[in-house]
């Protein structure tokens, strides 16, 4: 079995939820697509355009994000930001993420002790 391929598959599944959480955290301040990609890349998280833009729209459709068109330097840009509902959602997801992280940490500690 190709280990690299398997890593990619699992990473891609993990990323799906992780990216949503990142977006919800990042968009406390309104931002537009290119800026989101650029900023995330600078902190070491690479996201494809084809993944990000449809995701932003889906989150907007679910009213987790809100958007508005602005013209900056004669360029139209669609700015997204988190809605009130999105903030409540983020709070709950963060709790889940912290619990998951703790469980994983405990399991990993136990594994290390047994080694």
């Amino acid at each position, binding site marked *: 079995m190709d280990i690299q391929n398997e890593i990619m598959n699992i990473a891609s599944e993990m990323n799906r939820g992780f990216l949503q959480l990142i977006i919800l955290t990042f968009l406390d301040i309104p931002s537009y697509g290119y800026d989101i990609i650029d900023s995330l890349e600078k902190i070491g998280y690479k996201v494809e355009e084809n993944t990000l*833009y449809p995701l932003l729209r889906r989150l907007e459709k679910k009213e987790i994000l809100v958007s508005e068109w602005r013209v900056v330097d004669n360029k139209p840009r669609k700015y997204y930001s988190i809605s009130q509902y999105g903030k409540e959602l983020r709070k709950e997801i963060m709790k889940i993420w912290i619990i998951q992280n703790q469980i994983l940490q405990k399991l990993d500690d136990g594994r290390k002790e047994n080694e």
Partner: protein
Amino acid sequence: MNEKLNEYLNQVKAYLNTSDNKEDIIKELSAVIIEKAEKKYGQITDESISKILSDFGSPAEVAREYSDEQELIDRSFKNYIFMLTNTFFALIVGINLISNVFKISFTNFNPENLFLSILEIIETCFSTYFMLFGIICFLFFMLTKYKIKNIAAFWEYKDLSNFLTVKPPKVGEMISKIIFFMIFTLFVFFGIDAIINLLAKTGLQVIGISDKTIFFVFLFVGLFDLLSYAVKFYRNTELLDIVKGFFDLIVLWFATIKMESFIIADISKEINNGINIGLKVAFIVVTVLVIIELIVSILRYSINKTKNIMKV
């Protein structure tokens, strides 16, 4: 807007299958691509746009990301369904027709009962068409399921503009069709009897033709051809050729049921056989020509339709 970008966005739009606002999606994509090209390459040129677009992926792939749900059959296949179903249907009807002439048909017609024969034709056509449709849908469903989605069509490799141009009807051709039709009509109504009388005068004992159906069938095909050609002056579309082709095939098919009973009631067996063989050959030639013309029309119509979708 840059022409390359415009073309790309039009294609994305054509593939989009979402309840979301398509104009807004395109507007956003356009803004993003332009901004990226400007930031990365300093200016918006064909070259910088091309580089950015190659990172973005094909229009079908981009549109798929925006889709509301997984489609059973990928949107890019939808025109192939019509094209393939009709092409195979035309081929099967044609083969069945020719096999009818040789009496090895896989359909069981009753030449004595016109009503039953027509019902049989309708039933066979429907079941064959829907069976083909089902098989082709299943094929594309499997291709979609296993993500074999980006099959380049053969017309993307070759310049088919000559083949795809729908030729306008010509007055000269219309007149020659009318003249030919008139001569053939006269032959069917008076010519056949005149030939029989002439043969009788030479001493052959000719009683007559037991069934003129086959001549009337050719007449009917000719009349429909004339009418559809006349309609082309008003509205020139390949769809008309497809309807005409299928109509011709069904009429010819009906004729094969009657063919068995066509005999010149002459005592000379050799003449009878000769005439019958000649008619069968003529029948097969007409059938093959109709099928070729029909398949060409189907391909032309489907390819033009696919290309038009791309231009939306």
